[in-house]
């Protein structure tokens, strides 16, 4: 088990290193550098000013030095400087973290609470009308873009209540928070729950085919014991790993949904930074997202190891 953790941890660091190189290279592939773009935006070119900014950004240094400086700054917690708001990026990013974290938490909760039980029911009632209905629902869930679903929800609200429930101010109480986040979480979570449901179903069906289910049946186990005690326990193992994939899935949904619901979170901030060509922010935000996704996957692997005795007791 410790060896397993160590190995997974090293792999995580390696992935993050690769990620940082990828992001660094990608953002340097862009035509022109940041200084060009800044001047492009203002439409005014003063060579001296330009050189000064390039120096300030370290763009006159060799690429490797630039990379090392960037990583060094990141490790010190220095997320750079936004050229749009002209404030340190950390001041922009920090207040947005709880916003996105809450939205993500609600979405995840929603998708798991809906996805896992429906997936189990669908598998246990395989090839019945209920199973077909649930499969169609999950397939349409995967087919509806979150942003469109979000817009439809807004439309329904306008129709029924005459107002648009989009974010205007920071919610004061948890209840207000729920009200603000519930609808966007529904838009993000519906799609994710469809994914979880499909995976739970196929995982459950796979387990129900196993020999030990036959053993349980031969033992005289009831349908409930078989489905929940024997099958579900094995079926949730792969579903747990899905939560890792889910993290990446959710972020995609958050990006469009925060835009639709006007939520001042990190995901929308990334889109804005890209649109404004605020590349230092883009570089650090993408790296932050990568860290979160990789860390979630690492934690999921650890959780998997705890849940699966075959890994827990492996040496």
């Amino acid at each position, binding site marked *: 088990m410790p060896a397993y953790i160590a190995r997974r941890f090293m792999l995580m660091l390696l*992935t993050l290193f690769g990620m940082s190189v990828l992001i660094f290279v990608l953002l340097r592939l862009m035509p022109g550098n940041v200084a060009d773009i800044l001047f492009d935006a203002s439409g005014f070119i003063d060579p001296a000013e330009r050189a000064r900014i390039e120096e300030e950004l370290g763009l006159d240094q060799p690429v490797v030095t630039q990379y090392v400086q960037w990583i060094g700054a990141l490790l010190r917690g220095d997320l750079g400087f936004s050229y749009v708001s002209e404030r340190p990026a950390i001041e922009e990013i920090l207040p947005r973290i709880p916003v996105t974290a809450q939205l993500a938490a609600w979405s995840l909760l929603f998708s798991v609470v809906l996805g896992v039980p429906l997936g189990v029911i669908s598998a246990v009632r395989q090839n019945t009308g209920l199973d077909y209905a649930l499969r169609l629902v999950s397939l349409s869930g995967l*087919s509806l873009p979150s942003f469109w679903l979000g817009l439809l929800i807004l439309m329904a609200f306008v129709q029924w209540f005459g107002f648009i429930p989009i974010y205007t101010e920071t919610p004061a109480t948890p209840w207000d928070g729920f009200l603000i986040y519930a609808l966007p979480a529904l838009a993000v979570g519906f799609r994710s729950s469809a994914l979880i449901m499909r995976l739970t179903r196929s995982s459950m069906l796979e387990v129900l085919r196993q020999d030990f289910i036959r053993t349980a049946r031969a033992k005289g186990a009831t349908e409930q014991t078989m489905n929940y005690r024997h099958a579900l326990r094995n079926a949730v193992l792969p579903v747990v790993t899905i939560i890792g994939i889910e993290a990446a899935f959710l972020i995609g949904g958050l990006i469009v949904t925060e835009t639709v619901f006007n939520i001042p979170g990190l995901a929308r901030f990334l889109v804005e930074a890209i649109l404004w060509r605020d590349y230092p922010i883009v570089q650090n935000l993408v790296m932050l997202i990568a860290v979160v996704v990789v860390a979630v996957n690492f934690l999921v692997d650890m959780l998997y190891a705890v849940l699966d005795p075959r890994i827990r007791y492996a040496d």
Partner: protein
Amino acid sequence: MATMRTLVQPVDHAVELSRAGANVTGSGSALLHLAGRHPLGLIGLVIVVVFVLVAAFAPLLATHDPLATNAATSLAAPGGQHMLGADFMGRDLWSRIIYGARISLAVGIASTVVGCVIGAAVGLVSGYWGGWVDLVVQRVNDVLQALPLLVLALVMAASLGPSLTNTIIAISIPVVPHVARVIRASTLSVREMPFVEAARAEGMGELQIALRHVLPNTLAPVIVLATAQLGSAILTEASLSFLGLGIPEPYPSWGRMLSESAAEYVRTAPWLVIFPGLAISLVIFGTNLLGDAVRDVLDPRERS
């Protein structure tokens, strides 16, 4: 007793059934099989084919020039001259959706094909040759898969700049690691098959073996993956365009039609929100139905 439903599949039973010659899958053409066994897959196929036809015959189906603006018909409601209404610039929504099918399918299919071809090549090389090539490819795959698909596509689109070609590239890159991983896995198993050894014994070159013997045997999973990825690629294009980073104006992209003042149109011109979204959802739904059926046909065991 009558209601008893057993999901148990005893080993002996499987043997008995296959001995009994009950295994008749693969008889008849793939299409007939799809129709008989997978009615939903057939519906999916019909949806996709209809969209392809719409894209192909867009000039015949469109009632207006999709790019022609007209201040007089700005935000015209559905009915009358504009079947589905008109957008802020007075452009006919029906015609824009019809032409939008071209963009959506072209980008979706092209990026899926590009991603699958690159992915298959990478997976074949890394699975067949192994060694350090394989090691590097796998780590790069880890990295590419660690970023959410949309984020990777966003960054790619941002660094390449908005254009049709760049959007296709931006969407195809995230497909590569998925395909490469699957091809690598099946290459590893095919590589050990006796016929590969036989080909080698006959003096066939390694490259020839990889292309003539290994690649064709890994095609089934690629086809399964490609159909599954098609919907995802179409969705990514719509999302990128919705965020303003995909297909640039004035091309009629469904995602772009929903962007900008969509939240405002929810109140004032809901048709501008409903119809393009319906088009996106329907075509993705079709590819998903088709993808499931293709997987069922080509992949005997249900996979996630």
